[in-house]
Every structure is written in structure tokens, then in C-alpha cells.
């Protein structure tokens, strides 16, 4: 069964002021995949996600979602088309309740009709959010906040979820929970592109991966193949076993 290409990034350059952050970056994500974007700090991963989400406009290149050119669209329009980003550091609204945080995830016109439905799905995936729905978001633990951030991202009925640095600052047990949720999300038909620093974890969880360094994609391929890549082994010290 041929999988449809959901997201395509083509030859994208991004500048911050006079400084180039992305060089000729290209990637693809097919429907139903879980793809990892791996790289150290400063390699440009977050910048790439921001470009896809419309927070930054590329100086060169194009970005397509479901065949449509989204390169120059406003962020909220891109969300309405079905691309949702869970930003780095979670960035939930600390003063609002858990429920309010989630409900705001459906603020977008196109997502509003499905509010109730999506909320049920989120509660199913993350029961703890249902328990604590009246609490102020800042009272949640790190892991719970991450789940809230993911849940909020799901409220906009995304077809593609971009997740930035999911496991930052979380305990290993919690990270497991979160990745488990990712798999369940995939089962519900959501495609995922996530950003990670940890190579091993990424290659375990993802079907495919792109490795970035200093604003460029330096390696890409199936997780399996990458594990066996000499360079990956060399650079990341044989973590795949």
C-alpha cells in the first residue's frame, strides 16, 4: 500500500537576521509514519519545526502539506490545515486550568466542531488529565505538563503532529509513558514528526530518521539502516544494539 506523502520540505534556507540557520534542508513524512529529527543543540531542529509551523518564513525553498504550499501561510492557517506543533519546553498556559488549556487547543475554527470528540480522545490517552482537569496547569508535574501539551496539540484535530524535544527534563519512566502515548496516537491515524537529542531512543521509536548538524541534514534513512551506519556508530558511539 503506497503511503501518501503528508509533509514535504524542499531545499529550505532560513535566516535569523543575517545569520543562516538552515541550509538547503529537505525532508518528507509519509502518512502514518513516526519520523525522528535528531541532532545536538543548535543543529537547527527547532528552527525547522518553526518553519513548518509558519512561525518563520524561509528565504528559499518550499514546504508542502498534503500537496498544498504552506510556505507563506500564517501559523493559525497551518494549524487549521492539520499541522500541530507541541513546542519545546511544553509552554502550556500556567495560569489556566488543565481543561481550559485543552479547550483552547480547539480554538481554531476548523477544530471547534470536533471539540467534544477530541477531548474524549485526549482523556482516553491521558487519563491523568481528566482527573486533574480543574487544576491550574502550573500545579502539574513535568511529565503531566508534557501530556497536557500533547493533549492540547491533539485538540486541533491534527493529521500531523510536530513534537519538539519531548523528553527534555523528564524522568525515564515518564518518557516511556510519553512514547507509549505516541504509539497510541499513531494508531489513531496521526502522523508524527518528533525532535530528539537522544539517538538511541529516537531510532527505537521511529520508523525513519533524519540527522541534523549545523543546520543541515547529514543523514537519513530507516532506523534499522541508520543503526548500522558506520558514521552513526562512530558519531554516536555504538548505541544501537
Amino acid at each position, binding site marked *: 500500500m503506497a503511503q501518501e506523502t503528508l509533509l514535504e520540505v524542499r531545499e529550505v534556507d532560513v535566516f535569523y537576521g543575517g545569520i543562516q540557520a538552515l541550509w538547503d534542508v529537505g525532508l518528507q513524512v509519509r502518512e502514518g509514519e513516526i519520523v525522528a529529527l535528531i541532532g545536538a543543540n543548535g543543529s537547527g531542529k527547532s528552527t525547522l519545526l518553526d518553519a513548518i*509551523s509558519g*512561525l518563520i518564513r524561509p528565504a528559499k525553498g518550499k514546504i508542502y502539506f498534503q500537496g498544498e504550499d504552506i510556505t507563506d501561510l*500564517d*501559523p*493559525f492557517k497551518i*494549524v*487549521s490545515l492539520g499541522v*500541530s*506543533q*507541541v*513546542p519545546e519546553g511544553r*509552554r*502550556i*498556559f*500556567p*495560569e*489556566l486550568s488543565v481543561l*481550559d488549556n485543552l*479547550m*483552547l*487547543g480547539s*480554538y*481554531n475554527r*476548523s*477544530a471547534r466542531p470536533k471539540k467534544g470528540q477530541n477531548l474524549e480522545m485526549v482523556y482516553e490517552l491521558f487519563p491523568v488529565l481528566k482527573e486533574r482537569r480543574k487544576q491550574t496547569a502550573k500545579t502539574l508535574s513535568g511529565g503531566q505538563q508534557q501530556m497536557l501539551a500533547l493533549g*492540547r*496539540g491533539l*485538540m*486541533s484535530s491534527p493529521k500531523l503532529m510536530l513534537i519538539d524535544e519531548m523528553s527534555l527534563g523528564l524522568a525515564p519512566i515518564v518518557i516511556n509513558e510519553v512514547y507509549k502515548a505516541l504509539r497510541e496516537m499513531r494508531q489513531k491515524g496521526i502522523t508524527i514528526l518528533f525532535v530528539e537529542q537522544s539517538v538511541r531512543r529516537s531510532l527505537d521509536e521511529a520508523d525513519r530518521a533524519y540527522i541534523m548538524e549545523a543546520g543541515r541534514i547529514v543523514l537519513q534513512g530507516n532506523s534499522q539502516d541508520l543503526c548500522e551506519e558506520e558514521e552513526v556508530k562512530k558519531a554516536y558511539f555504538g548505541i544501537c544494539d
Partner: protein
Amino acid sequence: MSGLATPIIMGFLLGGLYALIALGLSLVFGVMKLINLAHGDLVLLSTYTAYVVMTKLGLDPLLSLVFSIPLLFVIGFVLQRYVLKRASLISMEAPLIITFGLSLVLQNLFQIIWSPMSRGLQASYATSSFGLFGASVPLVYLFDFVIALVVMLFLHLFLQHTYLGKAINAASQDRRAAQLMGIDTNHVYALAFAIALTTAAVAGVFLGLTFPFTPQSGVSFLIIAFGVIIIGGLGSMLGTFIGGIILGLAQTLGGHFFGAAAQMLVVYGIVLFVLAIRPKGIFGR
């Protein structure tokens, strides 16, 4: 000390009105980190609109709100959406300079149309007084206080319990996250600004009923609004309320001890004093 009862009660009641003036400025600043230097003049616009309704149509000035609330709503929306949003992309000072220009345009406009003469709004119910604790207080002050409470309550409920209100809240806490969730922040900011100016519209009419005004009054309104925010802090209705009361009392007690001509001086003095002693971290939540 019996002479003090009147200024104290009046100052307290006046404080509500001052909080109301500051409400719009506080909302705009809290959400968009913008100081609108024309805020006071826009409040005055509502006052002059009421004046027109009163003199040309012979109607109660309060009825002008039917017209001035939508007017200021539209002005606020357009100003933020098409002018100030652009300005904030230019530099930090651009919105200040533009609103400064706007302020002078309005002041001059008022002067051309209505001359520098001091004017006032009259309504039959506003002139009588009532007695409280041995003090004789103009009824209009009580109205000011009540309307301020009503508007603040409305706004509070709006921000806490409606979808749009929560979106405004969210966008002010974290703009980036709001955008990522599909909130059209440009649109939401414009609505917030529009709402802020409708509170200014209400404030304007009641100010006109309480004090005489001239084309230059806008500056004092701005300073009062700013003073309230500094004293009361941002993001808290209660703080704004308290700030208003403190400045209201400053004005009435200042007038009582130093004479009517100097009362604004006391207010300005307190604003500067608070600026001098408040540590830098007063702003932000």
C-alpha cells in the same frame, strides 16, 4: 476632622472611576505589551461625543454610549489590527511614537472643534448630593463607583469564562504557544484592543459628568491611568481597583489640604513617588 469625611468618601468613590480609566490601558498593556499614549485622548473622545449628544440632540449624555461604544470598538480594532501591529514590528518605540502622534492629532482636533474652553456634561440626576457619615457627596460620584464595579465585573467574567476571553488570556501569557494552537493572534489582539477602548468609552462619559474637561484633559487621564497601573500592578483587577482608590484619595485629599489648583499636582507627585520607590520587578505576572 469632620471636614475630612467628604474628601475621603469622594476620593474612595472617585477611585472606582480612575480604575475604570486604567482598565483599558491595563488590558492593552497586559496582552500586547503596548502603551497607548493616546489612551487618555480616546477616553476624551467619548466625553466629547457625549457632549455633542447632549448639546446638539438634547439627550442624556449616557445615551451617547449607544454610539460611542461601537465607535471606539471599531477604532480600537482598526488601530491595533492595521496600525499598531505593524508598528510593533518596526521597533519598540514605533507604537509609542505613533500613538503620540495620534494623541496630538486628537488634542488638536478637539481644540479646533470645541475650542480650549472648559466644558462639562450635565444630567439631572448627577447634580444632586446625598449624605453619608456627615459628608455631602455629589450623587455622580456614587454612579461613577457603581459603573466602575459593573464594568470591571463584566470584563473579569468575560476574560475568565468566555472562549474569546480565555484566548486573549492565553495569547497574553504565551503568544507563540497560542499561535501554535491555531489562535489567530492578530485577530485576537485587535479584539482585545477594541474591548479595552469600549471600557474607555464608558469611562469618558462618566468623567465628563464628574469633572469639567478641556481638549488637554486627555493627558491627565493618561497619567492617572498609568499611575493606577503602577500602583496597583498589572494583571490584577483588585490591584487596579486599589490603585484607583489611592489616586482618587490623593486627588480629593490634596484638593482639601492644598486647594483645587494643586490637586493634580498631588496625584502626579504620588505617581512619581511610587515610581521612585517601587522595585523594578513590579511589572509582569
